[in-house]
């Protein structure tokens, strides 16, 4: 293209750092975007040429992620977290305040190109909301004073990196510790324990068919012995789906491939969840330890930490932790002196896409593509990253695995309930005195958690976020466990003053915004649900609209491509079942109401013609 420069040295610098590897496209785009805050067409063309990719594919990837911009978005890009807990804490008033202070319209770029202000999906700061991101950096605990301060910093053109540390400080708010949060593990403990385990175990565990052990000391039984402990522990995935970790590791280990990969899913996008943020901030070594143990079991040499873009503030500390571990011989070659045990971890920063929390979409994103969930089978354990055997686990799962490597499976299995071994870290937010992170053995009742967090007059709890379950006060004796209320961690409390219809409406908009758009039911259905809920919210709904909500929701549940679509109707089903009056009291009629505001749809014509006579208005049907 004629407009494209021959050489862009600063872009080449980034490309070279990534070895001009197309699988690093998302990382490259993110870094290239930094100086200007957007990706001009010529830059896309240049990147495509340098990476040997079709230009349209590069543009398509950039167009997929919320934090990548194909149009100017301002030198400061302010994005208010818009989870229901942020709403409850008044985020929209603060957004308006900032817009007024900066003379900018929400969703638009200021005329001088300085700033844009808009909302974004939950940024994982629900325990210290309302929160916002500015150029990717989190600013929690917003109030009017902080908003005014931010407006001033932006007007002064202060780079975000130089903003007062107090403004950017994120608190951990750990309220209850158990085996995981209370662990005092030292770096290397779990790896050495896993290696030592092989020397203690009897020989019958040596069912070693193939794996990295072919490259190293074949008499080492550590990997199989450790795998046995993971299986014995009955550890189940903490990301929500609850697949048995030992079986996943075993299937991956047994899968044939040129290389095995260990991937940590730290794309904690479920609204109301932030416990991974706390684990990543304070327990990075435990996580990396767990990943390294997994690599030891699998025979993997490469690991990835897929860190959600909203947690960019954690990138530097985590990189530092990795560097420290390399220096200590806990990553890199011949780990802990074990000849042939090579493993390292790269951090991949996401760019704003909830769907990338789905493991196969995450892998696509890791490969530098649009985050579209793959067709399964085949599953990632056999055909994951670069079509090679890949284990994807949640942050908390790897942390638990590290503990099991040290203390053994039997120890772990004895904690929790019969079907849910171990502990669960909950992210508690909403209407309670002490929001934050709480670790409990599985089996704890909702009532206990409510008591501990100081929730009074709770009418509902959203367990495991919008894709989870909404329960009412009659169900507070239910237990947090796979056999009753499974959860990825979110625990949002709503007191009697909250409108559960608005809660559901917020979640429906979240899913529509985050739908990847691959399949028809989710792409169109989530949008139709938004429109139906907005219509009811305007007081223009009818019984017919509730029927339509059911019709669309059932289709979403039955025919969507992935979990996002399957679960996107949960908030509607749950609230229609438990809080139906919240919908019914808003209805205009039981019969049928138009899809659009009839009188409002004449407003443009009134403005153009200057008419305001009775015939220029439409009232209610007689």
């Amino acid at each position: 293209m004629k407009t494209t420069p021959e050489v862009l040295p600063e872009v080449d610098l980034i490309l070279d750092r990534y070895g001009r590897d197309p699988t690093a496209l998302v990382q490259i785009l993110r870094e290239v975007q930094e100086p200007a805050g957007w990706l001009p067409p010529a830059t896309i063309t240049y990147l495509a040429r340098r990476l040997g990719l079709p230009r349209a594919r590069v543009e398509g990837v950039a167009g997929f992620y919320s934090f990548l911009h194909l149009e100017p978005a301002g030198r400061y890009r302010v994005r208010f977290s818009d989870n229901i807990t942020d709403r409850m804490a008044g985020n929209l008033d603060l957004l308006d305040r900032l817009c007024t202070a900066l003379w900018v319209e929400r969703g638009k770029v200021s005329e001088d190109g300085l700033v844009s202000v808009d909302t974004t999906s939950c940024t994982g700061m629900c325990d210290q909301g309302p929160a916002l991101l500015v150029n990717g950096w989190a600013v929690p605990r917003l109030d009017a004073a902080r908003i005014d301060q931010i407006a001033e910093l932006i007007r002064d053109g202060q780079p975000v990196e130089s903003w007062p540390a107090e403004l950017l400080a994120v608190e951990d708010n750990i309220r209850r510790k158990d085996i995981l949060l209370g662990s005092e593990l030292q770096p290397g403990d779990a790896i050495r324990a896993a290696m030592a385990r092989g020397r203690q175990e009897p020989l019958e565990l040596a069912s070693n068919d193939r794996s990295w052990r072919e490259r190293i000391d074949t008499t080492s039984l550590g990997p199989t012995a450790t795998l046995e402990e993971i299986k014995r522990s009955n550890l189940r995935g903490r990301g929500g789906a609850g697949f048995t970790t030992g079986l996943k590791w075993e299937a991956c280990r047994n899968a044939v491939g040129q290389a095995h990969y260990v991937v940590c899913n730290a794309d904690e996008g479920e609204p109301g969840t932030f416990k991974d943020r706390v684990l990543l901030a304070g327990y990075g070594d435990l996580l990396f330890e767990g990943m390294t143990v997994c690599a030891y079991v699998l025979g993997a040499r490469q690991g990835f930490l897929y860190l959600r873009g909203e947690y960019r503030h954690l990138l530097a500390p985590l990189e530092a932790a990795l560097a420290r571990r390399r220096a200590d011989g806990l990553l890199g070659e011949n780990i802990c002196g074990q000849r042939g045990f090579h493993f390292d971890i790269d951090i991949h920063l996401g760019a704003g896409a909830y769907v990338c929390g789905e493991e196969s979409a995450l892998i696509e994103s890791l490969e530098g593509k649009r985050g579209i969930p793959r067709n399964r089978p085949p599953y990632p354990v056999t055909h994951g990253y670069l079509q090679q055997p890949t284990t994807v686990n949640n942050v908390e799962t790897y942390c638990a695995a590290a503990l099991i490597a040290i203390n053994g499976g039997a120890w772990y299995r004895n904690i929790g309930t019969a079907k849910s071994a171990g502990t669960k870290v909950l992210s508690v937010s909403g209407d309670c005195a002490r929001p934050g992170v709480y670790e409990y053995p599985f089996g704890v009742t909702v009532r206990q958690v409510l008591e501990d967090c100081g929730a009074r007059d709770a009418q509902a709890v959203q367990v495991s976020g919008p894709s989870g379950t909404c329960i009412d006060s009659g169900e507070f004796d239910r237990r947090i466990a796979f056999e009753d209320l499974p959860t990825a961690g979110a625990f949002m409390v709503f007191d009697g003053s909250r409108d559960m219809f608005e809660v559901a409406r917020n979640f429906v908009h979240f899913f529509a915004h985050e739908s990847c758009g691959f399949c028809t039911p989710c792409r169109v259905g989530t949008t139709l649900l938004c429109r139906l809920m907005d219509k009811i919210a305007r007081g223009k709904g009818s019984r017919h609209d509730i029927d339509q909500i059911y019709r669309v929701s059932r289709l979403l549940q039955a025919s969507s491509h992935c979990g996002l679509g399957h679960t996107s109707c949960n908030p509607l089903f749950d609230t229609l079942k438990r809080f139906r009056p919240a919908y019914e009291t808003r209805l205009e009629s039981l019969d049928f109401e138009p899809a659009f505001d009839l009188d409002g749809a004449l407003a443009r014509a009134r403005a153009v013609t200057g008419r305001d006579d009775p015939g220029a208005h439409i009232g209610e049907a007689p």
Partner: protein
Amino acid sequence: MSDAPKRKLRVATTSLAGCFGCHMSVLDIDERLFDLLEHVEFDRSPITDIKHCGPCDVGLVEGGICNAENIHVLREFRKHCKVLVAVGACAVTGGLPAQRNHIDLGACLQEVYVTEPSVRNGCIPNDPELPLLFDKVHALHEVVHIDYFLPGCPPPADAIWKFLTDLLAGRTPHLGHGLIHYD
């Protein structure tokens, strides 16, 4: 069958944002019209020139919703007709008039009545007698509940005949291949 003469079904028809092509297609059922008149009588319709419809069994509405008057007529039909049928592409989808939906109404009127080269001293009509336009053209089912849809531009006479004879016989109308047409 009872010996008593069967009550004729009362049918009303109208065209909203349409071209009367669907009404022409009704006439295209030709000599079968005589059979039809054995069974139906017309209330409000261009055929009778009755201006407002009373209680009816069936309302056939051609055309979509583009202005305020369309709403009043459609509401009248919905109120008085036990069975309301959207007839033709415009009634079913908004059709040709809905092609303006991506254009701002103000820009559209400006172009037509003011800036278009053949216009001299133009201005956008603002007489209160004129029905005011909606910003978008809508299908009927977006405004009132519709019981049946008869697509086509226009629906072929045979489709109209099949539809009406099914309805008259008390069968759920079913068109099948060759009679369902969106064009």
